[in-house]
Structure formats: C-alpha cells, structure tokens
C-alpha cells in the first residue's frame, strides 16, 4: 500500500513562482526518486494542482487527493504519461471534465503557475460541443470568453465570477434580419443581460408550484418490490421466513407489489428571442420542477442545447436561477429547434434520458431551421418518450401562421398539443402535469 499522508503544508513552498516542475525536480532527485515516496516538493505541487482543478469546478475531494498521492508512490514520477494517467484516474469523474483537466495538467507538468485557462468546455452541462467530431455536424458557434485569467492557485473565491461566453454570430450566417424575422432568426443575438429579478409573490408561487408538482407528478411501477398487503405477487422468501416461527407451517402468506416511482419529467424549453417574455418565468418553473421531482431534467435551447438541471439544483432559488441563466450562452437568441433536439437526441437521448419520460417541450414552434430535420428529431424523441407534450404559449390557430413552420412539422409526432399555455400562469403547470398522467398515449405506427 502506498504512503498514507496527511495533507502536507504547501505553504512552505513559495507559490509565487507557481512552484515546482515535476520534471525538473525528478531529474534533480536522481534515479532513486521513483522508488521512494514522493517528497514534500512533489506533494506540494500535487496539492496546488488539485486546488487549481477545484477552483475550476471539478469535484476534487480530499479522497481524490490521497488517491493521487498514493498513486504517485507507485509510479515513476519522472514519466509524464504515468503521472498524467494517475491524476486523470483520481481527479476526473466525467468525460466532460477532461478538457479542463488537460489544460491544468499541462501547466502543472511544465511548472507554470496554474492560472485559470479559458473556460467554456468544462460546464459539462452543455456538452453538445464536447466529444469532438461525434457532434460536430453543423457549424458550431464560436466561443468568446470575457473571462479574465485569474490565478486559481491563490485560492480566491474565483468560482463566483462565472464568465459567460458571449454569443457571437455564427459563421456564414448571412441572414438578412428584417422586421419580425429578427426575433426568430437562426443567428444568435446578444441580448442585454439584465439580472433576472423575482419578487416575493413570484418566489412564493414557485415554492407552491414545486409542492404541487411533487403531488401531481405521474408515477410508474418500478421493478423494485415492496411488501404490500394487497399485492398480487407471493413473497416466497418472506412467507417461508415467517413460517420458521411456526414450525415450518405457512399460516400467513406475504405478498409484494411493485413500488411506485416518480416518472421522469423532461423539460425542453425554448428561450429564444420569440419566447423572450416567457423565458424568465419558464426558467423559474423549471427550477421548481427540478426541485420537486427527484428525477426531473431540464434543458433549454435557442440555437443550441444547454442542460440546466445541475445549475438549477440548489436551495437558494434566486442564485440557482441566475447561475442557470449564466450557463446558457444563447439566451434570447435565434431559434433552431430541430438542431437543438438533434443535439439532445444524440447526446442525452442515446444515454436514455428520454426513455419512459414525460417529455414537455415548451416552444412557440417558430423555427428557422429545416422543417424536415425538426420533424425527424421530434419523431425520434417521441419514440423514446412515454408521452410527448408540446406546450405552445401562442393561442390556438396561430400555429397555422406561416411563421410557425416548425410547429406544423412537429405536430404529427406530438402526443398532446397544448396551445395557449401561458408559462406566466405558473400554477397551471402542476395542474397540467397532473392532468396528463402517466398513461401511454394511443399512437398509430408512423410510416416514414
């Protein structure tokens, strides 16, 4: 077993120069360095490394640090690849974290101060851009970062300053923006970022909504069984065990039933320009839903998809909302529903996020993208979902407008279409979810 170390006092090393270069120190230490326990200098650098990762939002626990230290004792610390993979195994917990990790590791190995690299990829929430070529079909929007390079090693509370990738026009987007078209163009438009403010009444309404959703959320029968008096499945194990006390005579039969579990609620919400007046409340409703149903997932999209479930998770309502909004680069931008749904289907859908879920799409269906693409993606989503519900804030009939091409394309694959649903009437959402129930809708086989 490797060494069991407490955290060394990293303050003994000067951190001003960024500390130690593993390569140089190992060379200086000579050949026996590989067999001995890593010395103080190495440990100090390792601690600084872990801190830098933590500052950048990786969930680096003390446990992980200890794992890394003991791993160093097992390896040749002069070999970059060995150290890299040891650190990788200890600190990285999802593939989304690899980009940040790589950057910090490079600096760590080179002995540079581990300053904050450009952010963007590590959110993990919006990893449609991750995974390289797998998702890189259409023109991926370029990122610009307004984040200032700040020293992560100094341990300031840098985490609070989330830098928001400011949206930039997509390459080759030569759309003329005229009149109403501007509201739903395929371009991302930069909107002025006002703070999302909620008054007391709204916050109270949201808390109530969370309670209501908790009550209304449809359930499904899980495969996990629970003892139940009225159950229909004989619990042989329990019956036999009980009969031990009566000399092996089974006087009472025990039954089990499948325990109910909340069905997953999956929200896909349009926060593009044409939905602007609903977006603020919509996000808040998502927060309430995520807080209420243990298995709810929330995504928002304008020109691309962002997962906001994790940013919304938290007790402080207002902070969570602000934080979630900050992760959405294309807030009030253009609309590409088809592209966003394609993103979803490819990344999360394949991982089973929509399987058996009640999927609620909130959008006005004003789409600039290819209607065929949209239809195909909605169909794909419907095949996975238990029920696909489309909430449209525009009243009935308006979906026949020429602008709502997207809506018309999606219609054949929507199980429930709810027009005129105003997201601002917050209480309506729970009612709606309750009314929908978890029943499987009648569908006719789709011939494509």
């Amino acid at each position, binding site marked *: 077993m490797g060494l069991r170390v407490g955290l060394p006092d990293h303050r003994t090393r000067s951190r001003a120069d960024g500390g130690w270069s593993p390569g140089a120190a190992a060379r200086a230490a000579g050949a026996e360095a590989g067999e001995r326990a890593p010395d103080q200098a190495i440990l100090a650098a390792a601690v600084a490394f872990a801190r830098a990762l933590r500052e950048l939002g990786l969930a680096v*626990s003390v446990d992980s640090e200890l794992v890394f230290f003991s791993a160093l004792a097992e390896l040749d610390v002069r070999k970059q690849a060995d150290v890299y993979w*040891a650190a*990788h195994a200890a600190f*990285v*917990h999802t593939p989304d974290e690899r980009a940040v990790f790589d950057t910090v590791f490079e600096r760590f190995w080179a002995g540079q101060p581990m300053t904050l690299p450009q952010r963007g990829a590590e959110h993990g929430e919006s990893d449609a851009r991750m995974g390289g070529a797998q998702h890189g079909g259409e023109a991926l929007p370029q990122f610009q970062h307004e984040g200032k390079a700040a020293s992560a090693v100094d341990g300031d509370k840098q985490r609070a300053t989330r830098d928001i990738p400011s949206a930039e026009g997509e390459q080759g987007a030569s759309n003329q923006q005229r009149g109403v078209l501007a509201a739903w163009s395929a371009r991302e438009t930069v909107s002025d970022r006002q703070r999302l403010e909620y008054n007391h009444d709204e916050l109270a309404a949201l808390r109530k909504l969370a309670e209501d959703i908790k009550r209304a959320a449809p359930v499904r029968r899980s495969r996990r069984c629970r003892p139940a008096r009225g159950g229909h499945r004989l619990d042989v194990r329990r019956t*036999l065990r009980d009969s031990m006390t009566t000399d092996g005579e089974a006087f009472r039969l025990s039954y089990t039933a499948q325990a109910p579990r909340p069905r997953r609620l999956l929200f896909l919400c349009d926060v593009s320009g044409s939905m602007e007046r609903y977006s603020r409340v919509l996000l808040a409703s998502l927060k309430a839903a995520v807080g209420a149903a243990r298995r709810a997932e929330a995504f928002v999209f304008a020109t691309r998809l962002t997962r906001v479930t994790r940013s919304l998770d938290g007790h402080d309502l207002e902070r969570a909302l602000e934080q979630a909004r900050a992760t959405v680069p294309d807030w009030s931008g253009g609309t590409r529903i088809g592209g966003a749904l394609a993103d979803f289907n*490819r990344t999360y859908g394949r991982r089973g996020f929509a399987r058996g879920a009640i999927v609620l799409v909130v959008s006005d269906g004003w789409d600039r993208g290819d209607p065929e693409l949209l239809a195909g993606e909605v169909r794909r989503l419907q095949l996975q979902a238990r029920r696909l519900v489309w909430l449209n804030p525009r009243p009935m009939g308006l979906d026949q407008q020429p602008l709502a091409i997207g809506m018309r394309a999606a219609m054949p694959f929507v199980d429930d279409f709810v027009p005129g649903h105003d997201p601002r009437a917050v209480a309506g959402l729970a009612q709606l979810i309750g009314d929908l129930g978890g029943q499987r809708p009648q569908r006719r086989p789709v011939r494509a």
Partner: protein
Amino acid sequence: MPGFDSIEQLRDAFTAQRYLMDEGLATVVFLAQRLRKPLLVEGEPGVGKTELAKALAAASGAPLIRLQCYEGIDVHHALYDWDYPRQLLQLRAGGSAPLYSEEFLVRRPLLEALAQPGSVLLIDELDRADDEFEAFLLEFLSDFQVTIPEVGVICAEEPPAVVITSNRTRDLHEALKRRCLYHWIDHPDLRREVAIARARLPGVSERLAEQVCAFVQDLRWLDLYRSPGVGETLDWVEAFHTLGRDEIDAATADRTLGTLLKERDDLERIRGKGLEALVERAEERAAELPQDGASSGAA
C-alpha cells in the same frame, strides 16, 4: 491474484489475452490493482468495458465474478440469501443444525467475491441499478466487508479487484465515484483497431482488417446516431471473411451494412452518401498504413 510489477508487464499480460490497451488504460488498471481501488470505466457502447474485466481475470488467472445490474436489484440478488426450502426441510426433519448459519447461506456475487481470495468482480452497467442499490454498494466498496445480521461481519482475506462499468444512462453518485479510479475508454485509433481485429480474428487477411477499420474510423467522424463500436467492427470483418472476401467492395458492404449500423436513419444516410466513395477512401487510408499490422499503436 498474482500482481503485476510494472505497467509494461501488465500490458503484455493483457496482450497475451488478446486485449490491446493503450497507455492510459494500462496505467489506471495497474494503479487500481496497486492501490486496491475499484475501477470505474465508462465509454461508448462497444469499446470493451466488460471485456476489460474478463481480460483482467484471464491475465491474472483469477476467477471472474459478474454482477449484472438492473432496476430493482437488491441485497438478495447481489449479496446473499437464505436457502429457505432447505431450511424448511431441516425444520420439518427436526434437525438440530442452526437455521441461520453458513450452511444455509446462498452466496450471491458480492459475497462470492469476498469469499474467493483474489477474484475479479465485475459490476456491470451499474447505471441500470437504482440509487438505493448504489448507496448499498458504497459500504461494500470502501471496506470490502459486509454485515449479515444472523452471521456477523464477513470480510475478505484479500479484497477482489473490482471493475465497475457504466453507460451513463444516469449520473452515478459523486460518493461512489470518489471511491473509484475513473477511466473513460475511447474508441481505439486506426492502428490499434487493426491490431485488435488481427488479434481477435487471426484467420482474416490483413488487408481486409485494415480496410474495414479505416472505413469504420471514417464513420465515427460522421455525425451518426449510433457510432459503431469495436465489437461491430469485428462483426463486420467477420461478415466479409465469411462471405469469402479478402478486401472490401461496395456491393458486399451494402449487403452487410446492417452488421455495422443498427439505426435505420444511419443506414440510409451512409447509403445515400455513396458507399463506393467511402469504400474507396477506406482503401486509400488502409494503403497508407505501414505494412506492420501487428504493432499496437499507442494513443
């Protein structure tokens, strides 16, 4: 389980089992074994997560114990159960042996792994189990001991090497990840995939293996719904081989494409793109490869 002294030795042992790993995976497996930590591997379907555990067992000559997870799996499926029918018989026969003793204990995979020193325990597709089971697993993974109320604490003489796989259908709990070493297995690069195909399917021609792998590598760059994994590559190579082909051609590729792609949309898309062009490109790329198919290129 005989340990591995160095990463190179471990890699050679795996290669002997026809499991070709890159440097990163080798390092992590080595560390998992040295630090006695469970190894959590994730990756696209078909990159060889389950195979890793099998190869580890074979390479170290240890028994492989597999626990397949599913929703609703509980202690009685995973850890232990009592043999109630036998207990009843014993009771009726008036035997004097205590009913709740090791004699009537049915060992499920986790307990079996504790009982067999130096075994390899594969906990497959943990993301399919529910949160409750994951929570139960925490204790097992950190201490390698379990408490059976009627018997007492059972701990392992020598803890098993644990490999956990997940397909990320849901996020595993942070607490569980913390107890594990993590590794994400990528699709292999062209040279290694060729090496894998050659190692797994010794009968096929080198040319065919190279061309098929080049073709599949190209497909992975396309934006498909379901990218083919290594397993499917091997199937496709075998399909060509079974049909008596020594190299790929568009007609056979068209007929056997279902071996590789399992989504209708993907099939249509690839066919629409023109198989001839793709096949041609694969042939070119395969021709560029150095004629030393056995080398396993490091990532």
